[in-house]
C-alpha cells in the first residue's frame, strides 16, 4: 500500500516536470476559442508562422493575466489577440508596444486607413493591428418566412414589423419563436449599445434616459412578449436555432455560423430591424497586439504578418466566419453559410438608414460596468417590469458617474463632446 502511494506520487511528480518546455511564441487569444475553431487556427492559419503556441483564454481570465503579468514585470505572453474593447484597458495603462512600422506596411498592403486608425485607440501611436472583423445580424429559419407580415421586406424590417412577425409566429406555433442571447455569456449588452439605442435614440450615452429611449423601451417590452423566456439562458443563438427552440434570432455572426453552415439552405440571414432613428449596427473588431516586455517580439511580429496576409485572411473568413480587415473580395466559392452571413453584413452596411455605432473607447477597465448599466436597465424594465422612467433615472445616474470617472469622450453615433460624455 505504502509503495503504491509513493510510486503514484513519484510518477506524477516526474510527469509534471517531464512536460517539455519549448521556445515558442506564446499567442494568447480571447477569440476563436471553441475547440473546432482553435484547431483551425493551429493547423491552418498559423501553419506558416513558425513555432507558435496558440492558447485560448476567456476574457475575464485574460484581463486578470495581463494585469498580473504587468504588475509583476515578468512576461510569458508575446502576442495577444482580443477584441477592441478588451485591448483598450491595456492600452490605457500603457501596457502595449507601439506598432507603427507594421501599420505602415499594412497600409501599403491594402488595409484601409480608417480601419487601422481604430487600432490607435485614441492614442498617438498604433496600439494594435486590426485582425478580423464581424458584426451582428439576424437569422431566421425559412419556415418562419410564411408568418412575415404582408408588405414587409426582410432586408429592411422595422421594429413594428418584427413585433408583428413574432406575434404571427406565436399565434401559429403556440410558442414564442424569437430569441436573443441574453444569457450570462451572451452578447446582449452589445444589442443595446449598437442596435437598440442607436435605432431608437440616435445615440448611446447622451440619449440614455431621454424620451426617445423611454419610447424605445416600451417597444422592446412589446417585442419581448414574443421572445422566448429562455433567452436569458442563451449565450450563443446557433444552438437554439439548430435545435428548433427558436425560429428567429439576433446574434454575432460567429455565434450563428455553426447552425447556418451546417444547413445553409434552411436559413435566411438579414439585417437587424430599424427604429425611428434608423438601423443601428455595430462593427466588431478584433486586434493583435504585443504586450510591453514580451519575450519574443520578433516571433510575434511574424505571426501578425502571417495573419494579415490576404491568403490567411480569406482562409479565416471561410473557416471561422470572421471577415478580413484587408480590403479584399471574398471568393465566390466561400463556405455557403459564411456567404449568407457576409451577404447580410453587406446589406446592413448598404442600407439607406444605417446608423453606425462604434465600440466604446476610453472606458479602460470599466467596459464591464458599462455593459452592466444596460443589462441592469434591461433586467429591471423588461424582466422585472419596473416603471421605465424610474429605472432610466437611476441607471442614468450610474452611467453619468461612470462617464465622469473615466472621462471618456462621446463616440459615434453620439455627438462629440468636450471632456466626459454627458448623459442628457
Amino acid at each position, binding site marked *: 500500500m505504502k509503495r503504491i502511494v509513493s510510486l503514484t506520487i513519484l510518477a506524477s511528480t516526474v510527469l509534471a516536470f517531464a512536460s517539455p518546455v519549448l521556445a515558442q511564441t506564446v499567442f494568447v487569444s480571447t477569440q476563436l476559442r471553441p475547440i473546432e475553431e482553435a484547431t483551425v487556427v493551429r493547423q491552418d492559419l498559423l501553419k506558416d508562422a513558425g513555432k507558435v503556441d496558440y492558447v485560448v483564454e*476567456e*476574457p*475575464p*481570465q485574460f*484581463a*486578470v493575466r495581463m494585469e498580473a503579468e504587468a504588475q509583476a514585470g515578468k512576461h510569458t505572453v508575446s502576442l495577444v489577440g482580443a477584441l477592441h474593447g478588451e485591448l483598450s*484597458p491595456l492600452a490605457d495603462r500603457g501596457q502595449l508596444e507601439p506598432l507603427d512600422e507594421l501599420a505602415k506596411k499594412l497600409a501599403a498592403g491594402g488595409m484601409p486607413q480608417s480601419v487601422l486608425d481604430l487600432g490607435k485607440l485614441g492614442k498617438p501611436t498604433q496600439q494594435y493591428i486590426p485582425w478580423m472583423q464581424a458584426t451582428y445580424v439576424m437569422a431566421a429559419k425559412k419556415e418562419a418566412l410564411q408568418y412575415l407580415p404582408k408588405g414587409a421586406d426582410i432586408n429592411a424590417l422595422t421594429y413594428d414589423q418584427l413585433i408583428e412577425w413574432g406575434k404571427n409566429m406565436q399565434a401559429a406555433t*403556440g*410558442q414564442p419563436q424569437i430569441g436573443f442571447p*441574453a*444569457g*450570462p455569456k451572451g452578447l446582449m449588452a452589445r444589442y443595446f449599445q449598437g442596435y437598440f439605442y442607436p435605432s431608437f435614440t440616435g445615440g448611446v450615452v447622451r440619449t440614455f434616459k431621454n424620451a426617445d429611449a423611454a419610447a424605445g423601451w416600451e417597444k422592446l417590452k412589446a417585442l419581448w412578449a414574443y421572445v*422566448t*423566456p*429562455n*433567452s*436569458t*439562458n442563451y449565450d450563443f443563438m446557433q444552438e437554439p436555432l439548430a*435545435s*428548433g*427552440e427558436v425560429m428567429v434570432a439576433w446574434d454575432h455572426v460567429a455565434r450563428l455560423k455553426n447552425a447556418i453552415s451546417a444547413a445553409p439552405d434552411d436559413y435566411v440571414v438579414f439585417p437587424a430591424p430599424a427604429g425611428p432613428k434608423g438601423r443601428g449596427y455595430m462593427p466588431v473588431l478584433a486586434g493583435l497586439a504585443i504586450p510591453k516586455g514580451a519575450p519574443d517580439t520578433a516571433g510575434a511580429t511574424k505571426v501578425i504578418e502571417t495573419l494579415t496576409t490576404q491568403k490567411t485572411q480569406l482562409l479565416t473568413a471561410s473557416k471561422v466566419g470572421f471577415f478580413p480587415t484587408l480590403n479584399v473580395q471574398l471568393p465566390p466559392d466561400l463556405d455557403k453559410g459564411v456567404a449568407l452571413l457576409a451577404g447580410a453584413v453587406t446589406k446592413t452596411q448598404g442600407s439607406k438608414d444605417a446608423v453606425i455605432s462604434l465600440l466604446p473607447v476610453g472606458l479602460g*477597465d*470599466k*467596459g*464591464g*460596468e458599462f*455593459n*452592466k448599466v444596460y*443589462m*441592469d436597465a434591461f*433586467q*429591471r424594465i423588461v*424582466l422585472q417590469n419596473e416603471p421605465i422612467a424610474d429605472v432610466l433615472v437611476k441607471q442614468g445616474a450610474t452611467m453619468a458617474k461612470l462617464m465622469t470617472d473615466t472621462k471618456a469622450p462621446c463616440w459615434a453615433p453620439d455627438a462629440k463632446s468636450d471632456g466626459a460624455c454627458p448623459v442628457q
Partner: protein
Amino acid sequence: MTQNRPWIPYLLILPSVAFLALLFVVPLVQTIWLALSDNGAPSLANAERMVTDINFTRSVRNTFLLTIVVVPVQIAIALAMGTMVSKVGRGRETILWIWTIPLGISDLAAGLVWLSILQNTGYFNSLLFSLGVIGRQASWLSYQTPIALFIAIAVAEIWRGTAIVMVIIVAGLNQVPKEFKEAAEIFGAGPWTRFWRITLPLIRPALQSALILRTVLAFEVFAVVYALGGRNFPVLVGEAYNWQNQNQNYSVAAVYAVLIMIISLAATLIYLKALKVDPERLP
C-alpha cells in the same frame, strides 16, 4: 505525556502554519484591504456599491433560501441512506460506493449533467412529453418560472452534495454499538422509537459535523447555479465572480468575498452556540 517537551506540537504544526500564512493569510489580508479601501484610503465605497446593486438583495435572499431548503433535505436523505444501508448485508459496499460517487464530481460536471436533463430538449421534458403531461417543450430554467428554476437548482445541489453528509452520517452510525439496538429491541421499542430515541442522539456529533460543513459549503454554492440559471438566479459567490470577471471591479468582488466569509463564520458560531458542539468537532 507531553509536559516535558512543550515545543513538540508547535514543531509539528509549524510547516502547515507557515504554508497557510504565505499562501492563504497574506492574499486574504490583501483582499480584505482591497475590499475596504478606495484609492489607497480606508473607505466603505465598495460596500455601498455592493449593497445598492440590483442583484444584492436577491442574491442574499437566494443564497439563504437555497441553504435553508437544501441542507435539511440532504441531512434527511443521508439519514435515510444510512438507516437503509445498515440493514443490508451483502452488496453493502457496492451500494455505498454508488451513493458516494457524487462526492468526486466537480461543480462544473454536475452543472453539465443537470443541464443535459433539464434543458428544453432534455430528458426531463422528453419524459413528461412521452407521459403526455406536457404537449410541447416546457422551459424550467427561465426567469418566468422562478419556482421551477429554484427547484431545479435545489435538486441538482441535493444530487451533488448529499454524498458528503451521507459519508459522515454512515460513519457515525457505524460507531453506534450494536448492543444499544439489540437492547432496545428486547425492550420492545418500535423502529421509529429506536430511531428517534437511540440512533439519533448517538450520532449527534456526526450530524453536527455534517450540518456545519454542509452549511458553509452551501453558502459558497455557485457553479451549479451558474450552469442552470445563469443570471436568472443570482447568488453571493456568483455575484462576486461576476464583479471580478465580467465587470472587472476587484474591489466589489472582494467585498462580496468578505461578506461570504462573515456569513459562514456567523453560521458556524450560531451552530456552536445552539447545538453546543464541542469545538473539537469543528469540520
